[in-house]
């Protein structure tokens, strides 16, 4: 399957004023014993109605914290949303009262989590757990909500939903539970669906089915999708746009085709290189050398500099910002001329098509 075919591009050319979610300069910090972790440190992106955006990056780069900040599900303290705006349908979610925010959660924005085995409450039937949200947000009676629960189980391809709805989570497999989570998320017809690594905990074959399901329901309901993953293959098959995160920042963004076929940022390139491809089977995987920076001791210049094969003078002292990037959408001194330094070493650019072959296979 080719990367361009995979992304459901039906809504890609909607007008830009149709923005559903606009995150601006979000900074989420954790105040812990050893100091402050800047888990999300100035993230901006937007999602149009019906758009599908993938967020990728290594473990710990702040993907989940971004999602949980949008949902306002972080415990404050230790978390603190130090600055930023999260504009959803014209309202800044960060300014809503807790009650107003509850109306948004589950109803306008629904979330699916990574761990299907623990995300459902073990002591209530799944019907109860789906119906509960429906009753709350749509004001349906118990009976109607129960029927709606059966309906949404059917919609996510669960056989015999009348029986399943009365079962407890422990009576189901991981894949089945993730279907239940999706059914639950969709039961209130959300405008935005946030899926945080929805397939990471599942078997490979089940992963494909769940992704297919997410793609299908996204297509049918027209809900916008924010898909968080560290698997570029998943992104390539499921979403249209992509944002690459590194150490609490977005370092590159664009359409899947652009970013995966011609990655600009050295980190994106490293990520693509680390995908095992068919031709490379049996060879050592190309993993980005070095480790994510210590959150208490971030590098002074570019966060990626200690691991970057292309790092040059400005990288050690100046911090590239994606907002000031020119050309836009990539935070790297290779592209944006660093103030006071000579033109960036464009010669260091890489042959991208070849790199992307990994995800195509």
């Amino acid at each position, binding site marked *: 399957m080719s990367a361009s075919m995979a992304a459901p591009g039906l809504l890609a050319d909607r007008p830009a004023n149709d923005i559903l979610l606009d995150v601006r300069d979000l900074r989420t910090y954790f105040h812990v014993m050893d100091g402050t972790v800047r888990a999300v440190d100035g993230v901006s992106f937007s999602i149009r109605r019906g758009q599908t955006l993938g967020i990728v990056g290594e473990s710990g780069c702040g993907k989940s914290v971004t999602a949980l900040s949008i949902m306002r599900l972080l415990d404050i303290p230790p978390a603190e949303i130090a600055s930023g705006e999260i504009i959803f349908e014209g309202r800044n979610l960060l300014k809503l009262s807790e009650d107003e925010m509850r109306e948004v959660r*589950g109803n306008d924005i629904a979330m699916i989590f990574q761990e299907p085995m623990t995300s459902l409450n073990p002591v209530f039937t799944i019907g109860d757990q789906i119906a509960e949200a429906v009753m709350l947000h749509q004001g349906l009676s118990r009976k109607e909500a129960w029927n709606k629960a059966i309906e949404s189980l059917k919609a996510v391809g669960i056989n015999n939903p009348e029986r399943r709805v009365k079962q407890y989570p422990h009576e189901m497999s991981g894949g089945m539970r993730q279907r239940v989570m999706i059914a639950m998320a969709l039961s209130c017809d959300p405008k935005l669906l946030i899926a945080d690594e929805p397939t990471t905990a599942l078997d490979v074959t089940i992963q494909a089915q769940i992704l297919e399901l997410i793609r299908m329901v996204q297509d049918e309901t027209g809900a916008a999708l924010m898909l968080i993953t560290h698997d570029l293959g998943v992104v390539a098959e499921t979403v249209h746009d992509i944002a690459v995160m590194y150490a609490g920042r977005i370092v590159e963004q664009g359409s899947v085709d652009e970013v995966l076929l011609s990655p600009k940022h050295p980190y994106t390139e490293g990520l693509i290189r680390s995908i095992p491809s068919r031709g490379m089977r049996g060879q050592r995987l190309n993993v980005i050398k070095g480790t994510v920076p210590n959150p208490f001791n971030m590098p002074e210049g570019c966060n990626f500099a200690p691991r970057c094969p292309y790092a040059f003078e400005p990288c050690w002292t100046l911090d590239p910002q994606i907002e000031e990037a020119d050309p836009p959408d990539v935070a790297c001194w290779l592209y944006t001329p660093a103030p006071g330094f000579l033109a960036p070493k464009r010669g260091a650019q890489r042959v991208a098509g070849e790199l992307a072959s990994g995800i195509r296979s």
Partner: protein
Amino acid sequence: MSKYIIRRLIQAIPVLFGITIVVYAILLAAPGGPTARFANNPKFTEADREKFKKAWGLDQPIPVQYCRWMGICNPENEGLAVFIGSTGWPAFLPTSISGTTNGLLHGDLGVSIDTGEAVASRIARAALPTFILAGNALVIWILVALLIGVYAAIHRYSLFDQAATVFAYVGYAMPTFWLGIMLIFLFSGPGLNILPAGGMTETRLSPPFGSDTYWPYFAANPATAIVDIVKHLILPVFTLVVVNIAGDSRFIRSSMLEALGQDYVRTAKAKGLPVRVVIFKHALRNALLPVVTNIGLEIPFLFTGAIVTETIFSWPGIGRMTIEATRSFDYPTLMGLLLITSALVVLANLIADITYAIVDPRIKY
């Protein structure tokens, strides 16, 4: 479910049978023996001792004694015929068939050496005060521990939480007998004489609880009688529950904190449920699972605790009777008491297991 309950009940039978043997063995191993009550009586001769032993059947071999106590042997017969009741049917069968009336199996726990009264009716009379004490203690214990534990978990590190922690350490470390005496000193002493120091009823107003005249008195003035008992209950109940509340409030707090940190709680919040529902439906229900087992295992302490508490507060229950029977070497009474308390422990565990099976859908039965 009912199948599970029946199975558990049937499983309890061999346990109870085992308990009778253990109770018997423990009392045999205890120093003294039924004649020790006369140890300081210079007029009690060796001949008297033999006579006493013969009268109480203590001259028989131990298995025979046990079988008579159980009601498997008929003391009227000799040799192998001991197993046969007066009707010719085996002695262990119900009285209506076998004609046998002695022994546990026929509801007879023997006669108190001390008072000459039937042990079963003695225990039955003392049981009600103990149930009143233990029942109130249980309800207050669970309610207060839940309130403290859940509130402390929701408001972790708050002033309340810290105060609860201090209370838990102090309460857990406090010896029951010392606490009881201090409470009497504080609330019934010369200073602040607001609560009775002991007993179950006010002697000047009411007949002794459980006596023949008590129930007519109770029927005539129910409100006064109940208020009277409640007043007498406050200090002993408090003494009895402090340790349990101290321990369980901590346990509930940590169990609740664990539940609150679970993924399904985050899911519940992500659905937009109000905090109240998230805490009291999703988290609490899960947090209570280990608590049910724990409380089930702690219920026996209500009975052991009652021994000290009832003695301090002269509460006319089975705890105080245990001490009295021990002091007077009243073996039949002691045996009956040990048996009943053991049976109650088995019952409490059974109830805890069944409750657990009801509240946790993952339990297979």
